[in-house]
């Protein structure tokens, strides 16, 4: 078994997703332990242009029409072959709609260990994971054979690994990819006549704590006062109170505003991973133990129902006065 650290690059519609950079940053840290190589696995179809955006020592590139976009069976068969032939120490996946779909399957079929929701690694290479909505952390040691790890954002900055954009390229022949049980038909873009919150600078976000649809008015008032836009976490969108275009989170948009005001949001990891790039986060939540306070810049336990109206008034006064 080699000591190399492998990373599965995630891309969609020709764009490498942010999680890949985080995986590479984590991988880079791990390679320094045994002085091993950081290898990126890139599966695609005529996607060679992406290779120069990958900061790794070595890129294993597999080209096949069935790999144009993410396809479960195609990815599993291909990555399986790569792991079997290369026997890396650790393979990093995103804890995402791509990575999570295949890591567990590989674990069983290749009989290797899997750790999920890893946020970072210790100096010695121990795997640190978060569970129970971020309230509990675990530390684990990788196995003696290949270990698979799915990672969540938060432990590494995507920009922190900016060393080498000229990796060695290895063209890897794909296994037979004909009889695939899953077939991609098409990608549906979100109906986007709405604002693109990922480009907004001032965001007022609402979570479960808003309690009823009527209370969205409070957020709207604040947004109007500050010249911002209202967005929401999953529970609010699931109820139908806000459209999916306003969803901030793992399955929604990742945002990077100047200011992110979170009203009644607890701070579940799926939401937090999408807002860590905000410049300033202000969290308003009556639960002092809410995980959001761990990543917010400022916080207050004041009840939003007591606070927002007064705040809006003061902002309006400040603007006119």
């Amino acid at each position, binding site marked *: 078994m080699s000591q190399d650290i492998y990373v599965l690059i995630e891309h*969609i519609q020709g764009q490498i997703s942010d999680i890949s950079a985080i995986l590479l940053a984590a991988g880079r840290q791990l390679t320094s332990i045994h002085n091993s190589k950081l290898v990126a696995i890139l599966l695609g179809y005529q996607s060679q242009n992406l290779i120069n955006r990958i900061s790794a020592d070595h890129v294993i590139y597999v080209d096949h029409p069935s790999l144009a976009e993410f396809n*479960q069976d195609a990815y599993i068969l291909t990555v399986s072959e790569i792991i079997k032939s290369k026997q890396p120490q650790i393979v990093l996946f995103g804890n995402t*709609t791509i990575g*999570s*779909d295949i*890591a*567990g*399957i*590989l*674990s*069983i*079929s290749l009989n*290797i*260990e*899997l*750790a*999920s929701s890893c946020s970072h690694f210790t100096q010695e290479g121990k795997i640190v994971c978060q569970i*129970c*909505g971020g*309230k*509990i*952390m*675990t*530390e*684990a040691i990788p*196995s003696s054979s290949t270990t698979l790890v*799915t990672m969540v954002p938060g432990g590494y900055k995507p920009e922190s690994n900016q060393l080498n954009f000229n990796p060695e390229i290895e063209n890897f022949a794909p296994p037979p990819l004909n009889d695939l049980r*899953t*077939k991609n*038909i098409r*990608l*549906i873009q*979100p109906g986007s006549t709405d604002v693109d919150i990922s480009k907004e600078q001032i965001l007022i976000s609402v979570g479960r704590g808003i309690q009823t649809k009527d209370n969205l008015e409070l957020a709207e008032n604040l947004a109007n006062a500050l010249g*911002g836009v209202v967005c929401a976490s999953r529970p609010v969108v699931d109820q139908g109170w806000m459209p*999916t*275009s306003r969803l901030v989170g793992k*399955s929604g*948009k990742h945002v990077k505003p*100047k*200011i992110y005001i979170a009203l009644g949001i607890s701070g579940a990891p799926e939401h937090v991973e999408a807002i860590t790039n905000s410049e*300033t*986060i202000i*969290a308003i939540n009556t639960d002092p133990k809410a995980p*959001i*306070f*761990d990543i917010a*810049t*400022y*916080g*207050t336990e*004041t009840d939003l129902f*007591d*606070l927002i109206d*007064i*705040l809006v*008034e*003061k*902002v309006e006064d*400040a*603007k006119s006065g």
Partner: protein
Amino acid sequence: MKIIVIIKLVPDLVEELSINSDGVSLDSAWLRMIINEFDDHALEQAILLKERKPAQVIAISPDYDGVDEVLFTAIAKGADQVIKLKGDFSNSNNHALARGLTPLIQEIQPDLVLTGVQANNDQDGSLGPTLAACLNMPFIGYVSGVALEENSVLLKKEYPGGVLSEIIVTIPVVLGIQAAEKPPRYVAVSKVRQIMKTSTIEEKQVSELNNNGGVKITRMFQPETNSHAEMITGNPEEVADKLLSIFKDIGVLK
């Protein structure tokens, strides 16, 4: 058409969580176990499918304190059959559960196996993919729309940014449900109580619980948050004033 729904119970995060004396697991004394909300969505999706085309919905749960009520509620919502997998699951991971469920599921020969896309206490990946591999079925996760065709399933898989991928997959298949097409329905308490009197939960003993595939946990702890928000205190007036000055400092307010 047979649809199996796997329902796990997970720790209720409303309660305070504490670590066991062994240092590597949760203290079960104060733990309240509730239905994994994604599994609730999976059940709802199964019932919705059944409402559109005749199907048999079978819900299976590993044995935990409080599982009976969850399974009776499943019947009240429309499940045709519920099975409790008996065994001591207090120290088992998803790999063990997947292996434990496999013989039972193979016996039933379902067309679809639905389960939640994740659970808050997953440590070795979520149940869905692991189970799919044991059953040698394809797996699609982050599913938020399911339509049954003749011998395949047409579904919508969620990608970041609100992008959806339309995928067709052969039957049988395991799906990890992110969200059902409608929020899980409400069942009146009296209905569940009625079901408790008239229905039964089948029990199947799990043969063995093999945790292989999960990494070895050396320590479980509550996060020492090295960063924390600067808390603003005072009455609403005072807090609003401070926030206003923060807005000015950042430059959000001229």
